[in-house]
């Protein structure tokens, strides 16, 4: 990757990005779609754009997906 590609990646923003509040509001719905193998990003492109760009929301998404795809009902 050359300097200009790195610089472009650094300042890139996606106009579809819905922001943290909107993404978190539907995160549980989005995660269930992903866990079920459905096209969550097609249904919620603005949420997908946000989760790809926002570290904290991306972390919440990864954690929630891990939680629902891992067995936690042991005592």
């Amino acid at each position, binding site marked *: 990757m050359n300097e*200009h590609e*790195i610089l472009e990646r650094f*300042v890139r*923003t996606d106009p579809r990005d*819905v*922001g943290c509040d909107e993404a978190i509001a539907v995160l549980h719905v989005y995660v269930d779609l992903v866990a079920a193998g459905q096209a969550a990003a097609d249904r919620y492109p603005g949420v997908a754009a946000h989760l790809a760009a926002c570290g904290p929301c991306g972390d919440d998404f990864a954690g929630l997906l*891990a939680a629902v795809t891992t067995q936690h009902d042991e005592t």
Partner: protein
Amino acid sequence: MGASRYHGPVQLARSAPRELDDESASWLRRLSSASLAERQAAERELHGRLIRIARSEVRRRSAGTPVTGPELDDVAHQAGDDAMLAILAKLAEFRGESRFTTWAYKFVMLEVSGKLGRHYWRNPPVVLDAEQWDRLPDRLGLDPHQHAEAACIVAEVRRVVDAELTAHQRRIFVAIVVDGIPLNALAVKLGLQRNAIYKVIFDARRKIRRALITRGYLDELDVGQR
């Protein structure tokens, strides 16, 4: 500066309330039961799950936080406890858009995020306003040995940040991007919501990009018109 395109025209198509799956219906029935014994049993079961998930989550995030050891376990317990309170308080708001457990576990994620942000400042590896511009090449992935223009690019980004961002934008941009302070931690420090910090970074990036295009460091056409 033009109007921000942040929160663009895309509208969320939220699901209408739908029939609950059997497991979600069972959770709701038991957590709302008129029988104290049944309700308490359900609360104990859910609380146990929340604590286990919170522990898993703080372990998963441990590499990205200065919080360690017993303090990390405390964070997990506090997050599980507070998530439980939030879930019970908002039980009537569950609309069946997802499985009940997915909805409930989201509260754990949010509590873990918020608490790790608060605990960051108990022993912060980075002081607010430290301005570690010399680390920016590393953060960008620019190797001075491989990228001859690295120093010029960093100098130009710094010039734009100093000259063209507002004081508020500059402070937040430098803290997050230059100094590497976690966004959740900065939100706690400044008393702002996560979304408010993110919006500042979003708008600052767009402003920097426009300045870099104007000065010939980026091509208007090769970057997706963003």
